[in-house]
């Protein structure tokens, strides 16, 4: 089966628990497990060929234009992680069936869990870095959902937020690192990146790439100083902790290190950063684990410490260390997942996780206790268990490294110290919980859990023992194959035997065991020592850091965005000047070579009118009504200018838009004061004057320089292809409905959305209405003057006729759906003005929202129609027909599209204007005689 199915099946599986939830808990669990089990089978079917050294690949095109594909690869490392993810995942599904209480939504839990599983599989199987990153982020999100599963608990919400913030920030760094790698290598394909070791190492970006990638890995794998989120993530249900926070998600960072080991390692920088971080994390985690009273807290810090151990191994400059790292990944996943599950059982059956209360559980649950003790011994590194083997390898590697030069002896010493604490906290786990007297006021009497709740623990503990006793048979091939994938080359020879003779690593193990015993025995001294330090809660520190970041952002935002439109405009115009003026400095000659047209008297008059109208608008901008009138002059002259310089389409559009705008402004003006108060200080006025003069000068010069030069635009193309390609001679219309039809579709959609938004905003609005005009005179009683009403009614059929005419001929002559729509709207608005809303409501049964919707639908359908003919979206079709009486005529699909535009424009315009008008239909205040 194709590799793509491995992540795809669980992705489909996210729906299964939601659908089967009603069928009962057991059914839900079995159904959920089905698809991951299938995935596991696919992986297992590929396992023999991968173990014999092959790398399986499979790819699907995703966005070919961007060179992106869905690419998967399965090599030894991927195989190892897939087995961990799917194997432990299945056990966790079984375990969670018994762990979750009937009150919890099992479907939701499983859904998140499977989503997380998909994301993890995606990471470990990706053959494309961008794709890897997408899955990486998906693990952050799904783990956020899982940690906050009990969202009614405050610590769950905060823990989830903290985990998301830390790992999300790391994800950003990772993306930056990946982009840099892609930049250096020229491809995001993992195959090519892995083959470009020298190229990356020798590029100047290497330090940046390394730091960014490590940030991603360290945040995910809870390495110092980002370790603090992991203990707080323990607010999650225990199956989540067992799965995410011991076996899989925290290993994603380790996986990343291992994946890029061949490319990024081998430099001093790598060794120094990775090994020191690992060492610090190892010691810190081991030390603090001892002091946690919460079972899961102890396990969380122990996980941090073991992750540090693996990181340290990857940071050492020997190949055998990498093998040991891979081996410890396997061993840690098995013993830690089983320990978490055991902790969950104890919590579930006794009601507490506090080791000060949990004592002597051996009497109550001997079977679980045995399992937990075996797993804990493995964690401590007791011989005959898997933890011992990898720890032994670790100790022996610390002896063989030379990262710190002559100070390298420190590493094995500190590693032994870590081992000592590891033994001590494992002992505490065993002794405090299962022995050490009697339980102290537990909420429940502890007892053995249901049979199948123990099964996952049994399987994992059995694996610990099997690997521990017969390592070569059980794990040898897998370890070999995964290590060779990490090293991208030959694996050095190593021995998985339990007994290597009396050597230094064995001595270190012995020291660790004895030292751990001693420390545990004298733990009271240590506890007293530790109690001197003030308790510092990472949650509070983190929270206050977040608060100050948010406050900082708010401060910055207020500086940039203070609500003053003048200010925004000023900044924008300043930028415009800066961008345009600089290149114009180097322009030596303003006037170009193009012959200029003679200026006749009419044109000069028009220009004078335009200028004076604009000036008058600026001067009287505080008297709103007069400003509106002078603005109308500008609009009119602009339209006439369009007509004069052979742009009839623009002239028609400008005219109709002009009228609609003026009506809109007057509708709004009614609710506003007639005069604007003086808002600008003399300083501001000087500033604005200077700025606008500068912008005007620059833009004017730019236009003049451009217009006096010969230049070629893309209009040649449209002129040449409009008739042959779009079937119309009106190039403007053909551009709108054909060449750039997709743009038009987007624009009318925006228009429709804007209209609906305005409608929703003003739907229930009740505004203050002035009782008289600006001089305080009362309004006239004549609501609908007779002459206006009669003339308007006469106008309607004529206007509709004009609009139909303009619409129909639009493809070949000036016109089209947009202009026709505006003319129709203006004609109907005129009826509103003359007769009032109530009159129209009785006679015109048009639902404007419906009109917008159907317009958009028609335009969209026309576009989709070309798919039926096997053409790209919105390809237009046209042909000529003959009918008696009418003669020859042309039909084009573009006309249908134009009809959509027409309807949308009418709907949007009327929806806005009529509803603004409706605001005042309610009774308005009347000035009484006394007030006059």
């Amino acid at each position, binding site marked *: 089966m194709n590799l793509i199915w491995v992540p795809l099946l669980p992705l489909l599986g996210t729906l299964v628990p939601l659908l089967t939830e009603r069928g009962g808990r057991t059914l839900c669990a079995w159904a959920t497990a089905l698809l991951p089990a299938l995935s596991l089978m696919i992986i297992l079917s590929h396992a023999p060929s991968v173990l014999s050294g092959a790398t399986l690949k499979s790819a699907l095109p995703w966005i070919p234009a961007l060179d992106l594909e869905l690419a998967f690869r399965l090599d030894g490392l991927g195989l190892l992680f897939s087995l961990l993810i799917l194997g432990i995942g299945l056990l966790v599904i079984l375990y969670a069936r018994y762990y979750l209480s009937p009150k919890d939504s099992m479907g939701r839990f499983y859904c998140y869990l499977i989503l997380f599983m998909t994301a993890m599989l995606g990471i470990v199987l990706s053959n494309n870095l961008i794709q890897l990153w997408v899955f990486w982020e998906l693990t952050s999100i799904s783990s956020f959902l899982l940690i906050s599963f009990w969202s009614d608990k405050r610590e769950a919400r905060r823990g989830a937020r903290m985990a998301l913030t830390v790992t999300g920030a790391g994800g950003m760094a990772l993306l930056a690192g990946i982009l840099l790698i892609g930049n250096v290598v020229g491809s995001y394909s993992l195959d090519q990146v892995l083959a470009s070791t020298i190229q990356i190492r020798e590029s100047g970006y290497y330090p940046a790439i390394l730091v960014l990638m490590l940030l991603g890995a360290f945040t995910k794998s809870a390495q110092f100083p980002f370790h603090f989120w992991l203990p707080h993530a323990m607010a999650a249900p225990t199956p989540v902790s067992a799965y995410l926070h011991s076996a899989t998600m925290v290993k994603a960072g380790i996986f990343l290190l291992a994946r890029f080991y061949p490319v990024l390692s081998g430099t001093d920088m790598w060794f120094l950063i990775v090994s020191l971080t690992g060492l610090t994390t190892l010691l810190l985690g081991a030390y603090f684990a001892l002091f946690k009273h919460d079972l899961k807290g102890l396990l969380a810090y122990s996980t941090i410490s073991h992750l540090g151990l693996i990181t340290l191994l990857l940071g050492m400059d020997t190949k055998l260390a990498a093998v040991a790292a891979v081996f410890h990944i396997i061993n840690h996943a098995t013993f830690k997942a089983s320990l978490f599950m055991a902790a969950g059982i104890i919590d579930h059956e006794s009601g507490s996780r506090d080791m000060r209360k949990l004592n002597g559980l051996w009497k109550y649950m001997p079977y679980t206790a045995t399992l937990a003790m075996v797993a804990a011994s493995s964690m401590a590194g007791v011989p005959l268990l898997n933890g011992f083997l990898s720890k032994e390898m670790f100790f022996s590697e610390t002896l063989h490294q030379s990262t710190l030069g002559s100070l390298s002896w420190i590493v094995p010493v500190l590693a032994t110290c870590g081992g000592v604490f590891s033994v001590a906290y494992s002992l505490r786990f065993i002794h405090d919980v299962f022995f050490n007297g009697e339980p102290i006021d537990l909420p429940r009497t502890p007892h053995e859990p249901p049979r199948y709740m123990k099964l996952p623990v049994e399987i994992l503990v059995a694996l610990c023992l099997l690997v521990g006793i017969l390592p070569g048979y059980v794990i040898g091939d897998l370890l070999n194959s995964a290590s060779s994938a990490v090293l991208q080359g030959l694996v050095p020879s190593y021995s998985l035997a339990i007994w290597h003779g009396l050597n230094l690593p064995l001595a270190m193990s012995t020291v660790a065991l004895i030292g751990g015993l001693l420390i545990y025995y004298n733990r009271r001294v240590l506890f007293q020592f530790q109690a001197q330090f003030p308790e510092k809660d990472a949650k509070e520190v983190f929270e206050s850091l977040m608060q100050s970041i948010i406050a900082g952002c708010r401060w910055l935002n207020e500086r940039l965005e203070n609500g003053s439109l003048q200010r925004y405009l000023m900044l924008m115009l300043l930028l415009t000047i800066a961008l345009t003026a600089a290149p114009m400095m180097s322009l030596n000659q303003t006037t170009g070579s193009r012959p200029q047209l003679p200026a006749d*008297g*009419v044109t000069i*008059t028009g220009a004078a*009118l335009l200028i*004076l*109208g604009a000036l*008058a608008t600026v001067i009287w901008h505080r008297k709103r*009504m*007069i400003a509106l*009138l*002078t603005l*109308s*002059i500008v609009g*009119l*002259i602009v*339209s*006439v200018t369009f*007509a*004069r310089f052979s742009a*009839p389409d623009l002239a*028609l559009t400008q*005219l*109709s838009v*002009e*009228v609609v705008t*003026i*009506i809109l402004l*007057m*509708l709004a*003006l*009614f609710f506003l004061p007639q005069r604007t108060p003086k808002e600008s200080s003399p300083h501001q006025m000087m500033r604005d004057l200077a700025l606008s003069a500068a912008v005007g000068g620059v833009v004017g010069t730019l236009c003049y320089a451009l217009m006096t030069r010969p230049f070629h635009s893309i209009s040649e193309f449209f002129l040449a292809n409009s008739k042959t390609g779009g079937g119309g001679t009106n190039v403007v219309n053909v551009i709108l409905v054909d060449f750039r039809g997709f743009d038009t579709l987007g624009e009318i959609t925006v228009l429709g959305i804007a209209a609906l938004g305005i409608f929703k905003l003003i739907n229930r609005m009740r505004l203050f*209405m*002035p009782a008289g*005009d600006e001089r305080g005179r009362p*309004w*006239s009683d004549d*609501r609908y*003057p007779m002459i*206006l009403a009669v003339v*308007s009614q006469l*106008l309607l059929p*004529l*206007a509709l006729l*004009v609009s139909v005419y303009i619409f129909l001929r639009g493809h070949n*002559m*000036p016109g089209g759906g947009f202009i026709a729509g505006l003319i129709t709207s*203006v004609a109907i*608005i*005129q009826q*509103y*003005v*003359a007769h009032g*809303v109530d009159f129209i409501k009785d006679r015109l049964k048009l639902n404007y929202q419906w009109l917008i919707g159907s317009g958009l639908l028609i335009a969209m359908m026309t576009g989709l129609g070309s798919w039926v003919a096997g053409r790209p979206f919105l390809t237009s079709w046209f042909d000529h027909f003959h009918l008696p009486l009418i003669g020859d005529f042309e039909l084009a699909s573009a006309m249908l599209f134009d009809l959509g535009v027409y309807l949308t424009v009418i709907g949007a315009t009327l929806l806005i*204007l*009529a509803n*603004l*008008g*409706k605001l*005042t239909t309610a009774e*308005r205040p009347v000035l009484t005689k006394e007030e006059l």
Partner: protein
Amino acid sequence: MLSTTIIIVSTLICISLIMNLLRLLRGPDLPDRILALDTLYINSIGLILLFGLYKGSALYFESALLIAMLGFVSTAAICKYLLRGDIIE
């Protein structure tokens, strides 16, 4: 003959356009200004028609027609505003 007429008439129209503008700017009252704007619309219709005659193209007549219709609508709306304040009620 026609071209001479066009020159003379367009000169006259230009003069009246400027006078319209002056009236609009001077006021003194809002109705004066509204009337000035309406006349401005009418004069520009004339100008466009003349231009159409000069070019010998029928396209300009449609623009003139539209200006006539839309000019009426906007003048009516402004008048309604003076009368009732609210143009759609």
